[in-house]
């Protein structure tokens, strides 16, 4: 089976700073993968290397067997930006945002046809935002806004969804809703790669976890990833510190 995502020996530098060092990873379709690391570990850079926003100095990325440019044109990649990357004062409605998921498959003026309107409505319904569809995007809670952007990926019919820190600034109830939504999408055969600080959510959210510290320190099942000695390697801390900070329940601590 073609992997949903293949990253092979990818290295990214910003000037003198090595952001990603020889990162390789493969994701099978229909899986949710948590991408875990401290700030500066390269999580966002890896997601950007997959979307092609950042060009790797070495290595290559394949999305469902295609090179990223082809995959982008096919609409295979959906990206849910970080909370702070969204201009919440921007005069667009929730429906406008979701409709942007369809643009890649529309004519030059991006005029929506009946089928596109139907896809937008269905996506809004699926994330439970139908009633808020005409609200300006800034007038949503953090969790609702995450769902709006996930809906955009659903309307896009993307195979690979990339989410950058979707749980930052989101209350527990909304987090659970987003987690359930992502699980459903994976059950439909889509692949979800979620970067997160939040170890708490990981067991419910992800089938597998990647611990990143400029390169892949660990890639495997979530319970193994959350073992204190595995985490210590990823965070660059002494084992004892992590054990005391994370506890048996896998709770994290501010790094």
């Amino acid at each position, binding site marked *: 089976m073609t992997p949903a995502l293949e990253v092979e020996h990818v290295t990214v530098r910003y000037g003198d700073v090595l952001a990603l060092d020889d990162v390789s990873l493969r994701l099978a379709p229909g899986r949710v993968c948590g991408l875990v690391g401290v700030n500066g570990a390269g999580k966002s850079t890896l997601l950007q290397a997959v979307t092609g*926003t950042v060009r790797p100095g070495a290595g290559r990325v394949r999305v469902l067997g295609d090179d990223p440019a082809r995959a982008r044109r096919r609409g295979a990649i959906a990206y849910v930006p970080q909370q702070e990357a969204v201009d919440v004062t921007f005069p667009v409605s929730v429906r406008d945002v979701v409709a942007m998921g369809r643009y*890649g498959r529309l004519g030059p003026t991006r005029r929506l046809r009946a089928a596109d309107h139907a896809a937008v409505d269905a996506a809004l319904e699926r994330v439970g935002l139908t009633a808020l569809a005409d609200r300006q995007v800034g007038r949503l809670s953090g969790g609702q806004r995450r769902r709006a952007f996930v809906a955009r990926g659903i309307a896009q019919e993307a195979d690979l969804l990339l989410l950058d820190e979707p749980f930052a600034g989101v209350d527990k109830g909304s987090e659970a809703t987003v987690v359930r939504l992502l699980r459903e999408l994976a059950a439909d055969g889509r692949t979800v790669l979620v970067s997160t600080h939040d170890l708490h959510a990981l067991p419910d959210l992800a089938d597998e976890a990647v611990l990143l510290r400029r390169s892949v320190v660990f890639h495997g099942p979530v319970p193994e990833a959350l073992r204190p000695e595995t985490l210590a390697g990823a965070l660059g801390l002494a084992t004892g510190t992590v054990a005391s900070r994370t506890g048996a329940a896998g709770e994290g601590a501010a790094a």
Partner: protein
Amino acid sequence: MSPLDLLLEPLGYEFMVRALATTVLAAVVCALLSCWLVLVGWSLMGDAVSHAVLPGVVLAYVVGAPFAVGALVFGLLAVVLVGAVRGGGRVKEDAAIGIVFTTLFALGLVLVSVTPSDTDLNHIVFGNVLGVSTSDLVQVAVLAAVAAATLLLKRRDLVLFAFDPTHAHAIGLSPRRLGALLLGVLAVTAVVALQVVGVVLVVAMLVIPGATACLLTDRFGRMLVLAPVLSATSAVVGLYLSYWYDLASGGMVVLVQGVVFGVVHLLAPHGVLGRRRAGRAAAVADEATTARPEAAPVV
């Protein structure tokens, strides 16, 4: 004299009819473009490109080419130079823009001073809407139509570019190309507007209407209606005031737009008073829709 005469008398002069037509065209197309400029955060870029086109316009005059061609070349040159100056990383973008546009503007002023001409090229700098000829008006109309049509046809892509360039890229569009399109329209629009208010004040027409509309609505589609209507109305009022009180026409157009912005800023839903009201309302707002600060432990 009746109020109707106040409106109709100036229309007895052909120069005033041409001036009004030019002003309305410029006000509308500038207002459309300004909706994107204020949202992308390109107000300073608008200032830069509108000043930088001056040498291009003067050279176009010298060789007898359409002003828009010269403006496009120098608008583009300005953008490339800003990129080059900023490229090293030591000079920040605002400084790079400041250096490039003032230098090109200065080049334009020098070119004006050495170019012999029957028309006063200083009118390009300060505007001379009362002296617009029929051929000027035709050129303005064509350029305004091209700019407005481009903006309206590509409006959804340009909104996407302004709102979320990463998503644009992720679905295979080119944010770079969309940015270039917006800059190209900016250079063309600068030529339209400088006939009315001159190079120095073009930026006002490129920023004020969008910023005003932004305070009045949460819908981009409505901004595209409000901004041109407000802009054209203010511009016509400004022109009439300049006629009746014998004041600088370009200056009055911008002054009225600025006053309208001030009033809206004070009274609009997103303005000063509106925010006060909203602040009180928020105190009793539905808690369920408000995100609580994240209490969960993090790595």
